[in-house]
């Protein structure tokens, strides 16, 4: 920005005995005055206004609701009668509530409740990833309430978005699985 320093003819009249400040200095000085003065006006106008006044320092966090895009991936649907669900190479996750899980669940399944109100905590995803690694599972199978939208499918998509591979969800969720098991079919 050396161009700013180029003195203009009107900036330095030769007859002026006092050295005049450089153009750059004058621009900076004027800009500073404008910033300070307009800030003062802003703060003063806030102080004197009768309504819509705000404190200089906000005491509590603002209630902001910005939907952050969740890393959602694709999960493959799996039919409830698929024998892979009960194989030892599958890590089965029950996405329903604790009460529903206690009432009935697929043997050896892990209860990780899906929260509709917020994205999964990192630790929840880590828990699933650790369990998958520990069990030597080749796939993660999630089942939920089977509603529309299905909590199992949503969990599966989020897990897939968290870079967990081979994530499936059971179509129809727990009701469909329960029905199949009562009939004595596989699983």
């Amino acid at each position: 920005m050396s161009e700013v320093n180029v003195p203009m003819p009107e900036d330095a009249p030769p007859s002026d005995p006092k050295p005049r400040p450089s153009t750059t200095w004058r621009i900076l000085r004027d800009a500073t005055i404008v910033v300070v003065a307009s800030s003062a006006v802003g703060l003063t106008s806030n102080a004197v206004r009768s309504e819509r006044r705000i404190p200089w320092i906000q005491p509590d966090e603002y209630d902001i609701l910005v939907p952050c895009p969740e890393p959602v991936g694709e999960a493959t649907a799996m039919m409830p009668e698929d024998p892979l669900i009960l194989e030892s190479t599958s890590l089965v996750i029950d996405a329903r509530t604790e009460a529903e899980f206690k009432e009935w669940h697929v043997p050896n399944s892990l209860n990780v409740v899906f929260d509709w109100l917020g994205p999964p905590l990192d630790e929840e995803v880590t828990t699933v990833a650790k369990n998958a690694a520990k069990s030597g599972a080749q796939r993660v199978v999630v089942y939920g309430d089977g509603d529309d939208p299905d909590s199992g499918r949503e969990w599966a998509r989020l897990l897939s978005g968290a870079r967990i591979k081979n994530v499936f969800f059971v179509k129809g969720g727990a009701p469909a699985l329960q029905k199949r098991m009562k009939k004595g079919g596989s699983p």
Partner: protein
Amino acid sequence: MKGLLDWRGHEWLGLAARLYVGYVFVSACYHKIMDPGVFAVDVATYQFLPLSTVNVFALTVPWMELVVGVMLVVGLRVRAAALIVSGLMVAFMIALAWALHLGLDMSCGCFASQAATEEDAISWHTMLRDSVWLLLGLYILVFDRRPLGVERLIKQRS
């Protein structure tokens, strides 16, 4: 370079740029001055400034926008106003880049509060638009050395 700086056409190009940028800044400040609380929420939504500075920013910046907008339009201390415009645009663009980096799905809040409109969603187009305004500000700062306007008129009369 001196020839380029001395070109008389800069007066008119600078005037056009000043009127445009001045209009943009004056029209952008209106809703922020009328309701600083809403603008403060808009600022907080960017998740860029610390909470303790959000309200002071929301109270002072719209008035800066108004003052520099008027200065550009009427031709008063034009280069100082252009310096502030450029500084503000750089600050806005950093905040915008931050919000885009976070992937925030939000509107800009530049000309209307985010609560009032879901349009004007931030994107790289917003960044491009702001870049144009930054370039215009820099153009005025560097090239508009004998700006047409009130100040020149007063100097000519005295």
